């Protein structure tokens, strides 16, 4: 056996281990209640009704809608604001820039759990603590990791383009809007898909802020489904699995269409020390 074949064989083994939970999940979501635990990859009887049942039992459609709305708002806010801030750091020289950018990089290391309580109290003080607003509005101010990433993109653009535009009378905003933004599109897409995924999968903030089940995003709703149909004692795990599939499939599809953006995002994650 050649070395390459041994490597591919090892990867195939790992690949099976990594794919198995997905297949198990999908299969369990289609099984009869009595067979969820049989570990067979093909259900003995197919019960797609599980999906209809969980759909009737909880406002799944509303949760999907909420997740899409919050995800798009969070991603859009993060993309636009981070691009504006990143352009400021990349394109203009001003006193304090180096120090300020140092603080941006430092906040990436700041544990989010530390500001959890006071930020909640702020939203509480302005009367928005039980709405969906806190799930995305914080993104309106740019986020450190994305500012860093987009700044790299802007620094990579040739300075002559901007100089030429300035000679033609384009002000800073027009340089940003009509030159930098279109050229940085690959970077903007990375930020958008990353933040959409982050918002779509987040549990802790929906747990803190959302009280009404109608406002739940999918992870918060899925936790409620688990508490009621799984852990709660009813032991209707096939419904929990069906709801889990509903929460997961959109992310899989997003990955399949935007794979290269996710990979690029992960690879650019590494920050200069």
């Amino acid at each position, binding site marked *: 056996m050649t070395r390459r074949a041994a490597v591919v064989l090892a990867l195939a083994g790992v690949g099976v281990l*990594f794919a198995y939970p997905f297949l198990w999940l999908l299969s369990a979501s289609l099984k009869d209640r009595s067979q969820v635990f049989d570990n067979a990859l093909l259900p003995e009887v197919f019960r797609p009704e599980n999906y209809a049942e969980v759909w009737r039992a909880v406002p799944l459609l509303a949760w999907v809608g909420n997740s899409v709305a919050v995800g798009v708002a969070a991603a859009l806010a993060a993309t636009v604001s981070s691009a504006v*801030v990143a352009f400021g750091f990349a394109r203009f020289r001003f006193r304090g820039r180096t120090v300020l950018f140092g603080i941006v990089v430092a906040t990436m290391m700041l544990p989010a759990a530390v500001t959890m309580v006071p930020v909640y109290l702020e939203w509480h003080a302005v009367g928005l603590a039980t709405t969906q607003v806190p799930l995305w509005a914080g993104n309106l101010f740019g986020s450190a990791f994305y500012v860093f990433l987009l700044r790299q993109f802007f620094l990579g653009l040739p300075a002559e383009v901007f100089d030429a535009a300035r000679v033609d009378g384009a002000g800073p905003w027009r340089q940003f809007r009509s030159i930098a933004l279109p050229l940085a599109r690959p970077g903007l897409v990375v930020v958008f898909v990353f933040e959409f995924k982050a918002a779509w999968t987040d*549990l802790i903030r929906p747990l803190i802020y959302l009280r009404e089940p109608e406002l739940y995003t999918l*992870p918060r709703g899925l936790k409620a489904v688990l508490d009621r149909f799984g*852990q709660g004692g009813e032991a209707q795990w096939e419904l929990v699995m069906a709801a889990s599939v509903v929460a997961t499939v959109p992310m899989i599809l997003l*990955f399949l269409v935007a794979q290269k953006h996710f990979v690029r995002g992960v690879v650019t994650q590494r920050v200069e020390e």
Partner: protein
Amino acid sequence: MSTREARAGWLFVLPWVIGFLLLTAGPMLYSLFLSFTHYDLLKPARFTGLTNYREILRDGRAATALWNTVFFTLLHVPLQIVLALGLASLLRRAGRSAGFFRTVLFLPTMTPPVALAALFLLLLNGQNGAVNAMLGWFGFTGPQWTTDPAWIKPGLVLMSLWTIGSTAVLYLAALTRVPGERYEAARLDGASAFRQFWHVTLPGISGTVYFTLIVNTIASLQVFTEAYTMFFGARPSSPAEGDAALFYVIYLFQEAFGSLRMGYASALAWVLFLVIAAITALQVRLSRDYVHYEDRA
């Protein structure tokens, strides 16, 4: 620098400055203030001096939560780094099939942690879960991953390994940046595969490994979602079992939003902040001798 340019620069970065004051610096100071008070949202905060910090020192659950978190981190972070590095090395040698396997390994990282936790509650089930069934093929009797307090954290670590794909992809990118001539030189010197890895590969990617060590440690010390989904919430869990999965941020969350002890939770948050800062500083110090900075992204 012209004043016009400086003004434009400040205007562009202004959103971030406002956000930093409103959502980071301000809250940090507010939280520091609250940590010296008793505050339950209903009555105004009452100054209580060091009472909260003294209570933390005597609080058995805080100690348990901190220990659980450190234990999980000590197991999770090194395992994740070593296994991700192994996978990345395999991917590097996989030739044309690398793209396919990269997709397969990366996909689990897209799963919402709540869905992942619900799924692994069943896969890790002690009686009839798939994990123990697989162990059974090799003649092992698997433990009660989800109910035995001694095995709950190892179970969570095992589960976390399903999502090492993004770290592996990051390492793969670093591996491809190590210049090929160095391997040739090492081979000419008769270096074994192990020595090549130790003297060429590892120094070449040490910056990336160091980065993931720091970032993953910080993230791991704030572990919340999976354990909370599996062992807390509406679930009437037995105290022993519940405390085996009581991680620090879960305890902080419960104190703040369950018991509405905002002052005490703020003190807990500052303790966590100091612990994380100390550990990060230690890692930065220790790494000085081992990290080669040529490996820049």
